[in-house]
């Protein structure tokens, strides 16, 4: 069982920034001429940032790992961490800039639902088509087609063109095909997000099952930690194109959640890089101090008190504060803002005290983003400064909460309300 199915050695993928692709020959020649004569680039849009042609971006930076036969590996990481690029390289959609990937068998990739489905063809024809794309022979598919149709729950519609399918049916069929084809390595990128709950469960079970019984290796990318927990026996965390963790699933999920933000008592904000919408920023937040840090773990029903220090380049009559709360994996939860703002004086360190109400948040990990803004005379707001996800905290389950059941945010959201009161009678 120790046979390697996939080995990735020092793989890097570099993308060029700036205008490439979709340009016309004329534009390219104009640019070349301009560069030679040291003129301003004529194809550049007015006001666009300085020309970045030729600047390189490393989407993957010497990534190495290997997958054994029958292993089910989860890959997690924030947006832009390089997960999709990695899967693209393994499924041979594009070639690496350097490094080497060894594959021991066929790869079935489901980077998106219904890969290679053609709307005009019927479900049955598409099964053959998808199989053939994976390099299977017609008689190999013949042998499996009954199982596929059975699993897809689409028997009634199997001879209808797939353009008339609902999105759920589409996924079911696509998954059924991928799961039954003879690929030794399966690559899945959050395709399960669409099907209904029962089908999702069925898929996860089927995947575990085939990887155990037939020794297939699975690479699974998801933002949904629960499915990662259910399916995978190993997990890789990617961050900025590098493997930052490789091993046990629970530890990986913890590592992943700690990448973002800072849970220290005082967060220094002055030198943190601002997102484009906050630069330039007339106000600079310098420090965010949490007054009751508690290791950043709060029981359900808490409030957090903060002291925010900032300095302004000009006098501001009424500066407002906005706090955005997101989950640790980046889904927005809510926003809290000030009713009445405060005045900021020029070039003076101002200390702002505020209290954030997190009492209705359900157990889980969250990140908090402070933004300072003002409302101008036209009634629209102007950002003065803002930072994303600078403070992370966890809301912990308290005994008795939700009758001691695990809160499933996927179906119930992130807020709870006062308990229901039920009485008998009218």
């Amino acid at each position, binding site marked *: 069982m120790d046979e390697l199915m996939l080995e990735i050695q020092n793989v890097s993928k570099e993308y060029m920034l700036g205008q490439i692709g979709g340009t016309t020959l004329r534009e390219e020649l104009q640019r070349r001429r301009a560069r030679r004569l040291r003129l301003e680039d004529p194809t550049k849009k007015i006001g666009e940032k300085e020309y970045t042609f030729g600047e390189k971006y490393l989407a993957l930076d010497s990534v190495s790992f290997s997958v054994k036969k029958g292993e089910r590996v989860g890959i997690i990481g924030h947006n832009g961490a390089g997960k999709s690029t990695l899967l693209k390289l393994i499924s041979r*959609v594009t070639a690496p800039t350097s490094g080497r990937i060894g*594959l021991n068998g066929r790869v079935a990739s489901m980077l998106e639902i219904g890969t290679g489905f053609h709307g005009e063809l019927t479900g049955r024809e598409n099964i053959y088509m998808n199989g053939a*794309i994976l390099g299977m022979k017609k008689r190999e598919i013949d042998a499996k087609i009954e199982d596929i149709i059975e699993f897809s729950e689409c028997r009634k519609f199997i001879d209808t063109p797939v353009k008339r399918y609902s999105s759920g049916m589409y996924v079911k069929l696509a998954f059924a095909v991928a799961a039954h084809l003879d690929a030794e390595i399966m690559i899945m990128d959050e395709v399960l997000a669409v099907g209904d709950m029962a089908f999702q469960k069925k898929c996860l079970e089927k995947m575990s099952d085939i990887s155990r019984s037939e020794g297939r290796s699975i690479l699974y990318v998801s933002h949904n930690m629960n499915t990662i927990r259910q399916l995978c026996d190993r997990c890789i965390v990617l961050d900025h194109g590098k493997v930052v963790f490789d091993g046990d699933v629970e530890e990986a999920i913890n590592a992943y959640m700690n990448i973002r933000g800072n849970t220290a008592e005082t967060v220094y904000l002055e030198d943190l890089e601002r997102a484009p919408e906050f630069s330039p920023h007339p106000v600079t937040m310098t420090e965010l101090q949490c007054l009751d840090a508690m290791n950043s773990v709060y029981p359900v029903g808490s409030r957090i008190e903060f002291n925010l220090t900032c300095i302004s380049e000009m006098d501001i009559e009424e500066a407002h504060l906005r706090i955005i709360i997101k989950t640790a994996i980046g889904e927005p939860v809510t926003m809290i803002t000030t009713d009445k703002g405060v005045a900021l004086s020029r070039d003076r360190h101002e200390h702002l005290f505020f209290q954030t109400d997190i009492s209705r948040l359900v157990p889980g990990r969250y990140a908090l983003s402070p933004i300072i803004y003002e409302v101008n005379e036209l009634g629209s707001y102007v950002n003065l400064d803002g930072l994303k996800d600078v403070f992370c905290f966890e809301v912990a389950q308290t005994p008795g909460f939700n009758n001691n059941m695990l809160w499933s945010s996927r179906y119930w959201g992130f807020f709870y309300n006062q308990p229901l009161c039920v009485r008998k009678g009218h």
Partner: protein
Amino acid sequence: MSQQFKTEITSEHHLFDLHIKETFQYRDLIFLFVKRDFTAQYKQTILGPLWAIIQPLLTTLVFTVVFGNLAKLTTADVPGGYVVPGFLFYMCGNICWGYFSSTLGATSNTFLNNRETMGKVYYPRLVAPVSTAFSRLISFAIQFVMLIVFWLFFMLRGGTDIRITPMLLMIPLLIVQMIMLAVGIGIIISSVTTKYRDLAMLVGFGLDLWRYGSPIAYGLGMIPKKYQGVYMLNPVSPILTAFRKAVFGFGYFNLKYFLISWVITIVVFMIGLILFSRIERTFMDTI
């Protein structure tokens, strides 16, 4: 490096790594693609594959009227007073050119048209242009049957010099050459258009010009002797004249130009394959 892998993906690329064998292994996929193209093409049309006949038939009629009756261009490839119905003459040229230009046009969009699937799964990319060439071949076959019907009709009616000669056996060779030339040019264009879309604009226009630079609307006899040497360097010209000689039993065939045309075809085809296999590795990043 302890283990040998079945497939290796590296950043290096060898010039002659053309995936020909792999493409052959995917012949079931080629077959399915051909079937898909053909069904998708005529789906929701009333006349269906009949369209494959109607189009060249009408073009041939127009050519017969405009170039034959009005402009009175000669339909003779060689002097000698051989009699051949103008209608049959134009039909030969039109179905050959129709196949050539539609295959070239379709394969020149290989990457653009297939980026949806190619962006998500791997299969030898050459499968796409190859199956395009084959699916157009079905239409060509239907048209060829139509040509035979008219050919028989004119033969039986008499009054022409058409005769059956061993040249007929050359037709498959000519078709192979047309496929190679069209696919070769098509994949060169598709490789270059992943970065520069300009060329795609040029294809339709260029094909139009090319048509009138080839002996389709007129016989080779139109071209003065001293320019024929240059004219026959157009690789399509020897194919067309040879095709007509094969069908009619008389006409123009010059081994020298025929071989030159083959050399051009093979060179173009090889350049196409090399360029295509180079581009296919990373075209998703630039398209």
